């Protein structure tokens, strides 16, 4: 309370000083004025409105709704709603987060930070899953489903047995593995105190040499994005620096741009017909799909199915891929990915097929849709 009064005083001081400057005409800039009482803006929030939005759950369990879920129910819900990104066993698909395992790796070179190994509070998992998951379908899980998923994640981390049931009643008792693993920012003591001093300007060290070169070289194509290639240059051949400058001046390396310059012209000459241009345009558009879909030689399933031969095929028919219920139903109903159907799907996936797992918002430009379909056809149809 004493600090509150202090803070209030500080705010008043700032405002008084600003008011004085204005009064003196010395400086007409001032922070937004304070105001006795309120402005009377806004309207009272209704209970139902607060209930709809105020759903955060605190580490002590405050905010949890009544409900429960067990490991086995959780396994089913997880397989249906979570596994396409996080894997059947919460092991993570592609770059999507791993949720299980990684115990005692936090001090290793590459720590594996999972719900089990790293998260200090169980409330965080419940809160996040309930509000923000599944990715692309946030806010659609029931309280019981959320309890069940959290119970399954604990099980997949070997933190509970298979007969475990999580509920609002036993929630607050549950202690996470890494609950004592966090400290509040120590930089003020460990770093600031040491580094707040006049820095060295001359002869700060005897010599300076390159110990590591950039792992990647990054190309920046004109249309945006970037392509990284490994840098195979070594530190050998680079000079060591002393106060007298570099130890030697390396001979000029051949410029790779000059050698490569001749090639694109030839390519351009070949790529003249319209279809090829469309395929190229489609390849560019397909970049938006690449996070989940592969196409071409050796294409595998990722978050979404591999797409070789998809145009003209029956919906939901790519072997070895676990489709959503909605896609399975469409498949059974005999949906075929004709150009028209595919175009409609790609334009607004969620409108076209309610319940699809494809979290993509859709392609707004008809030209992009056409191009990407032509591109997909170039891998069989």
């Amino acid at each position, binding site marked *: 309370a004493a600090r509150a009064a202090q*803070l209030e005083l500080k705010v008043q001081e700032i405002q008084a000083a600003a008011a004085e400057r204005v009064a003196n005409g010395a400086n007409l800039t001032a922070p*937004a004025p304070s105001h006795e009482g309120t402005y009377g*803006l*806004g*309207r*009272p*929030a209704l209970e139902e409105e*607060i209930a709809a939005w*105020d759903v955060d759950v*605190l580490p002590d369990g405050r905010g949890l709704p009544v409900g429960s879920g067990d490991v086995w129910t959780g396994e089913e819900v997880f397989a249906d709603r979570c596994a396409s*990104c996080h894997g059947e066993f919460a092991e993570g698909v592609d*770059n999507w987060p791993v949720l299980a395992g990684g115990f005692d790796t*936090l001090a290793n070179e590459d720590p594996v930070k999972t719900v089990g190994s*790293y998260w*200090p509070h169980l409330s*965080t998992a419940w*809160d*996040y899953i309930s*509000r*923000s998951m599944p*990715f*692309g379908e*946030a*806010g659609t899980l029931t309280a019981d489903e959320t309890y069940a998923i959290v119970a399954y994640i604990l099980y997949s981390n070997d933190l509970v047995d298979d007969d475990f049931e999580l509920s609002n009643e036993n929630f607050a008792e549950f202690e996470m593995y*890494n609950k004592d693993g*966090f400290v*509040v*920012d120590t*930089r003020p003591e460990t770093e600031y105190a040491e580094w*707040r001093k006049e*820095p060295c*300007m001359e*002869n*700060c060290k005897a*010599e*300076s*040499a390159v*110990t*590591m*070169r*950039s*792992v*990647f070289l*990054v190309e920046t194509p004109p249309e945006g*994005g*970037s392509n*990284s290639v490994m840098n195979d240059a070594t530190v050998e051949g*680079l000079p060591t*620096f*002393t106060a007298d*400058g*570099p130890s030697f*001046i390396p001979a000029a*390396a051949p*410029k790779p741009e000059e050698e490569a310059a001749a090639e694109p012209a030839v390519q351009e000459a070949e790529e003249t017909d319209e279809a090829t241009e469309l395929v190229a345009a489609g390849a560019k558009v397909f970049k*938006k799909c*690449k*996070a989940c879909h592969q196409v071409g030689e050796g294409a595998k399933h990722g*978050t979404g199915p591999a797409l070789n031969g998809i145009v003209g095929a029956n919906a939901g028919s790519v072997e070895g891929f676990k489709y959503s219920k909605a896609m399975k139903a469409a498949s059974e109903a005999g949906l075929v990915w004709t150009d028209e159907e595919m175009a409609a799907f790609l334009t607004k996936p969620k409108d076209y097929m309610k319940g699809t797992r494809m*979290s993509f918002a859709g392609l707004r430009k008809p030209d992009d849709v056409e191009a990407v379909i032509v591109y997909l056809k170039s891998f069989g149809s």
Partner: protein
Amino acid sequence: ETPDPLITELQDWASYTGAGVDETPYGMPISYESHVVRRNVEWLTASPISSINFTPIHALDGTITPQGCAFERHHSGAIELRKEDYRLMINGLVDRPLVFTYDDIERFPRENHVYFCECAANTGMEWAGAQLNGVQFTHGMIHNMEYTGVPLRTLLQEAGADISPDKWVYVEGADASSNGRSIPMEKALDDVLVAFKANGEALRMEHGYPVRLVVPGWEGNMWVKWLRRIEVVDRAVESREETSKYTDVYADGTAQKWTWVMDAKSVITSPSPQMPIKHGPGPLVISGLAWSGHGQITRVDVSKDGGITWETARLGKQGDTKALTRFYLDTNWNGAPMLLQARAMDETGYVQPTKDQLREKRGENSVYHNNCIQTWYVSAEGIAENVEVS
């Protein structure tokens, strides 16, 4: 010597007429600058919907970042939210839980401030060594804009909030990720803004249109976009973004939480890997950016020999608090290779550390808050490369 035909011959643009006034009602950069764009690195994230791209800081000058090339970071994609559909709720430990419309927000007294917004993960890939060859990619998770907004304290006062210093303000967005973060009351009362304009114009969709939070000097993840709810609480919520993410794992496996402040940092933007020296020996402008979450930048030093000797650079203008400061070192390049570094100091006397100093304290697994001194090796041909030095 041959006369320059660009001077001696009549050029098309000096004879024909140019574009009419309404050709692009909202202007885009001229086509010759179309390479100056935000860029991402695809393999860094699982999906472009939850991802990051980078400001082309190598190609900018001065300090203000145009909104159209200011980096984006979304956790569930950028949403389209109309002003008419915008609601901001303030609830929790308040006398009067309130709902504001967008128009309500514009009726409170407002302020203008220039602040930098830096992602906690800026330079995060470089902990394990020199990784990405371009200042856009090593340091581009930053932008600097002039924000117009209402002080958060005004809204807290309007709702009759409990503002005692052990209280917290929990903020969340309207998007699917909601990205909730807890802010201690002292900061909430200090300089946090509920902002609706940047660089004079409405916020861009990707920066939280129509309303976002501005948390000066603190990590970008706290600058909640599409701000929809402010809750006064008696403890930190410890949401996903303040426990599992945006916490710093040290070498011994312990993690640091609530590491909100972005410490003083600087980097040379030109020359740099995307900005080689093309003109050969002679006059050379070495230029870069410096910033500190603790306040003003007071000095920037530049070294051409990997930290053996330092020269004090010239500041473009006295830096605003918690905003980007431009520095220049106007020099005469003798054509010999250089190891270029910059080192920032702020008004608290904090001196930007070397990578080794940081690693000694934290190890290499920290991901976030890497504010080390960056080194570019510049060859005799003027090509610059991201390197580490002894």
